[in-house]
């Protein structure tokens, strides 16, 4: 945008605005938030919902304020009886072809269409008629598609293509019969969907949802024969409070642990423990590869959406991926081996629940690579942050008063041993750059042999899509890259493949901002938009705060980890470590595409 300004007349007031600004943005500068639906600042302009229309003098048609740039002398009216009626009618038309089971809808209260219908004043239905009859698709283990709720704003189509570079979703059919689905209307589980769940996040209604595991978890909790264990990912504690009306960025570890105990879990473990373990194993792997054993750059492997993307679109880089299981799968594997042995419980009697910010974790848990020798999964159920919030509400737990009520005589608000203690390095796993920073904290010490190395690596912090840096470690120049959002990962990988850039290690998180922006995180609280950089920044700051407040900042210093190696795993990269903590990948190129 140039620094030049132009003068427009906005609702009768002559105002100066920067040249090239859209009508919508210009109005926002003067306190008018034009209603909108298909518009999203991070996505390309569609101009298709027509909710943001305004009157422009001299134009025969209303103009979509999101996509029309102001011109010198433009006279805009953002409100008039005609415009208000038109907007109202457009929203009603959307409602008229929408599955109106609002009270039964998971998105009730977080629905943009509902909010719009209220603010546009759709109090009666003038044009009601037939509704599209479209079948839902619940073939995927992670993401449910419900076209009966779809209002065809196309945000999912655009997020899938423009933020994630997957291009799985498209509009099919035409007119009233239009439906958003994978190519050729294939079922989601046969499509190239990487199950990141960003379509769920950007959907204004509930046309995409995670496949809920709450019923199975309730059943396990009610089963006296089951030893039900839960683990929570690093980023849950930074976001869960939003679900209970607390301000974004409020760290909420204690309340969360307390609530889980209320729900009746037999043990509350921390995925962070697995994260510390991942760092130890991955740093070991990295150092091995630096020494010539294995290909570089090393690609991190914590994000299942990213791993799916790698297997589908960059199979040639599979050897570069770290063989480490994700922190979730490590924690589950250890729960059903190390912990089971310690407690003397049959691993088959353990029901392992993982609370994740991510819907792709449901897919990861179901992958055949993550099963015990008897074929049963290490992780039995994956809940998203949203599902856990709902369970807590459903149970009737007063989250605000936790953990001060001692009615139940609950033991404490800390994670259980032996998979509960974690370093600050593991907390920041939940944000983009965190895995890199945690790896560096450990790798530098190992490479240089000097304790108490650098702790804070500002160069990898922040929610930008791609961060690159160069570090001098033990006389070696190490080139690192951090990418979040798969379109950004794509640009880094393409640069690597073309030889344009050389890196030693690349951290990739499928979702914008990393796990804090995951597809299973709470819907944005009022005042924030979906994928709002400010919301992501606040959630990240909660994690950095937790990290900074901990005495233990490096994964390898975690005494519980040391104990685990001493008692069980022997040493990083050992045979038993390989069996429990490492995995394999294989190409899963889209159907019809040969390698």
């Amino acid at each position, binding site marked *: 945008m140039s620094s030049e300004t132009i003068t427009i007349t906005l609702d009768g007031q002559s105002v100066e605005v920067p040249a090239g600004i859209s009508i919508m943005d210009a109005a926002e500068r003067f306190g008018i938030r034009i209603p909108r639906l298909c518009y999203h600042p991070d996505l390309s*302009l*569609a*101009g*298709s*919902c*027509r*909710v943001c*229309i305004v009157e422009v003098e001299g134009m*025969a*048609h*209303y103009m*979509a304020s999101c*996509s*029309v*740039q102001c011109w010198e002398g433009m006279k805009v009216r953002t409100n008039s009886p005609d415009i208000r*009626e*038109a907007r109202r*009618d*457009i929203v009603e*038309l*959307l409602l*008229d*072809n929408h599955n109106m089971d609002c009270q039964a809808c998971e998105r009730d209260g977080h629905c943009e269409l509902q909010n719009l219908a209220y603010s546009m004043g759709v109090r009666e239905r*003038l*044009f009601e*008629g*037939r509704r599209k009859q479209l079948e839902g698709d619940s073939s995927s283990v992670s993401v449910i598609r419900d076209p009966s709720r779809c*209002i*065809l704003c*196309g945000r999912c189509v655009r997020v899938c293509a423009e933020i994630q570079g997957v291009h799985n979703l*498209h*509009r099919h*059919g*035409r*007119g*009233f*019969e*239009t439906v958003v689905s994978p190519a050729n209307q294939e079922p989601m589980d046969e499509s190239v969907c990487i199950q990141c769940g960003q379509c769920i996040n950007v959907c204004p209604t509930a046309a995409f949802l995670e496949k809920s595991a709450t019923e199975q978890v309730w059943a396990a909790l009610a089963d006296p024969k089951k030893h039900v264990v839960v683990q929570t990912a690093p980023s849950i504690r930074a976001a869960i409070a939003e679900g209970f009306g607390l301000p974004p960025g409020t760290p909420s570890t204690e309340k969360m642990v307390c609530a889980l105990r209320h729900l009746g879990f037999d043990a509350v473990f921390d995925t962070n423990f697995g994260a510390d373990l991942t760092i130890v194993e991955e740093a070991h792997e990295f150092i091995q590869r630096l020494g010539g054993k294995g290909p570089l750059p090393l690609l991190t492997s914590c994000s299942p959406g990213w791993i799916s993307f790698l297997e589908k679109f960059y199979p040639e880089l599979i050897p570069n991926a770290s063989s480490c299981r994700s922190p979730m799968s490590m924690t589950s594997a250890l729960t059903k081996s190390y912990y089971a042995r310690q407690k003397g419980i049959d691993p088959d009697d353990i029901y392992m629940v993982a609370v994740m910010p991510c819907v792709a974790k449901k897919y990861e848990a179901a992958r055949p690579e993550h099963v015990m020798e008897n074929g049963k999964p290490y992780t039995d159920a994956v809940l998203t942050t949203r599902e856990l919030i709902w369970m807590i509400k459903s149970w009737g737990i007063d989250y605000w008063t936790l953990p001060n009520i001692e009615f139940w005589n609950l033991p404490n608000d800390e994670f259980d041993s032996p998979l509960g203690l974690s370093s600050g390095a593991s907390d920041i796993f939940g944000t983009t750059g965190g895995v890199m920073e945690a790896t560096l904290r450990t790798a530098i010490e190992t490479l240089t042999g000097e304790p108490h190395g650098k702790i804070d690596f500002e160069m990898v912090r922040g929610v930008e899509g791609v961060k690159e840096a160069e570090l001098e470690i033990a006389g070696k120049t190490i080139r690192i890259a951090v990418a979040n959002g798969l379109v950004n990962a794509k640009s880094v990988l393409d640069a690597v493949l073309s030889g344009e850039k050389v890196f030693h290690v690349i951290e990739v998180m499928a979702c914008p901002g990393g796990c804090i922006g995951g597809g299973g995180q709470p819907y944005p609280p009022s005042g924030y938009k979906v994928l709002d950089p400010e919301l992501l920044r606040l959630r990240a700051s909660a994690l950095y705060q937790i990290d900074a407040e901990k005495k233990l900042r490096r994964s390898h210093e975690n005494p519980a980890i040391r104990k685990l190696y001493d008692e069980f795993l022997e040493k990083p990269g050992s045979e038993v470590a390989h069996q429990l903590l490492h995995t394999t990948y294989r190409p899963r190129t889209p159907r019809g595409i040969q390698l």
Partner: protein
Amino acid sequence: MAIKPLERFCDLANAARNAAGGGNDGKTIIQVGNATCENAAGSRAVLLEFRKHLEASGRRDIELREVGCTGRCSCEPIVGILTPGRALIKYESVDLEKAHRIFTSHVLDGQPVDDLILDDQPQYRSRHEIYVCGAPRCSEQEETSLFERFRAKLVQRDIPGEEAKVLRANCMGLCDMQGGTVGTHILILPARIVYRARHEADLDRIIDTHIVGGKIVEDLRVQQEPLSQRFFEQYGDQSFFNQQTRLAMRNAGIINPESIDAYLTVDGFAALAKVLNGADPNQVIETMLASKLRGRGGGGYPTGTKWQNCAREQNETKYIICNADEGDPGAFMDRSMLESDPFSVIEGMLIGGYAIGASQGYFYVRAEYPLAIKRLEKAIAQMHERGFLGKDILGSGFNFDVEIRLGAGAFVCGEETALIHSIEGQRGEPRIRPPYPSTSGLFGKPTVINNVETFANVPVVILYGASWFSRLGTPGSGGTKVFALAGKVRHTGLIEVPMGTTLRQIVFEIGGGIEGGKRIKAIQTGGPAGGCLPAKWLDTPVDFDTLAKAGSIMGSGGMIVMDEDDCMVDIARYFLSFSQDESCGKCTPCREGSTRMLEILQRITEGKGVPEDLVKLKRLGNLMKKASLCGLGRAASNPVLSTITHFLDEYEAHIVHKKCPAHKCVALIHYEIDAEACTGCTACARKCPVSCISGERKKPHVIDQSLCIKCGQCFNVCRFDAVKRM
């Protein structure tokens, strides 16, 4: 010094003329139509029949010529016989047996077969056919019509019809070609003489000297060949064609569309050669601007301005696209032009490409037009062979190539941004504008998109000049417009008239009026997105602005005439159902609004309408019009809004009185048998598919209304008008 493009062209054109045998002189020519509709009507078999006869006859002086579409849909297959010294005679609905008669009697013996002649009008076969220009502009300069006076004089002189016949023609394109001198032009065929008459005395001289004396009146003679002379001479279909002015379709039905030689013999590529011979691209654009040629695809955007905008863009790669994704129901202008004269369309595109600086063109043709595609492919191949396409065209240094892309049949792909998406391999959906294609179009490059008819006009503008072309139309819009005339007129087909011709002229003078002597009720223009104009607006001159003002649109040229048997509510419902079905689904007002409007209209035609429905229709119609993303949505409600405006009484009849005045809406009619008129013949009872008619022989019959399915078979079968449709 290298040979100039113009010289190279002249060599090629001369070679083509020589190859064609030096013209038609002394030859008998049999024209057989070869286009999709003609073929469907059986013209291929007719052609083979003539070929058989021709081979058997062993005659070398007879040429069998395949030509494109002549536009007389209802009378196909059409065969024209052109014998030396005579105007063309055309035969309609020719089959194998008729072909045999025509060949033996007319071709071999010189005796026309009167009972087979087109429109049953053998009287037109006069020794002298005198066409008097009747274009409004010229007649204004005369106090009383020269046409009438000429006719009166022939009667006074007792000159019989077989000797001379005066016909009124529309603009022959002669005006101003010699500097704007006043006078009415008169073309006499088959002598091919054009006179300019200024006074009554001139008429006397033409009659005395030419008609009676058989000599040419040299001082009244105009030397230029009128553009349409070829046309009058070779169409032989005066009742339909003499009111037309064919520019875009100048060669349709006259030349063999699969032969570049045929095209070269009718000044084909002369305009291209003229341009390539060193014309400044800006000069070409200036010419287009001055011609007032406006986009014929429906938008009516000035072609010159479009070209200028694109030419101004600084970009090495530019594209030019021909939009041949014709989709209006009942429209086949583009198809006919591509099938009948593909070269002129490509020539127009080449000139456009030269003007804007593009070297790649795309034809976006719907896949349902296989013959048009085949002919385009043939034309492109022949043009490559002769050096009219490819590198260094005619030695001018200009490179240009053409690719054909097939559309999959989505109506919305006629919208330019959706069309671009489709060529790019994306979903055919419009996008927001700006940026306009002239800035960022195909593959992000500056792009011009013109319709088939627009391109077909370009060579004419270049050859005959901008001022001539612009004078042919109205002050705001130059040239002619092709319409697909359909509905309740006697002569349906493709017609081309100067902008500003009134609806009345089109319907009554070209279309031959309403069939069966019924009253005209409305004219629907502009395809499914157009509006319905009531009969009282018949004197509206047709051009972009007047039609828009009247609440309809020009569109790509659909024109459907409706009579008192047509229900306007049902018509509105039909057109909206088309747009609703073709909505791409991207924007809310079009996708949802069209569906809701259609539901309401359906309700009304079923007799379930309520008075509020009219308010809702208007509200949704206006919403679609003002808030939709693209032209399809914005115009889709036109048929509904315009019929509510002009035929409110019909809506009210349906809603309030539950009656369909045209007896069209099945739910609102029933059949009764008039006991007094019924003879008890039992024909209706025997025909009734649900056996709901009972009665004894020779006694009045009765319909059981509870069983009747209202198929109307009893109504059709009754010979005594006893079955009444109420």
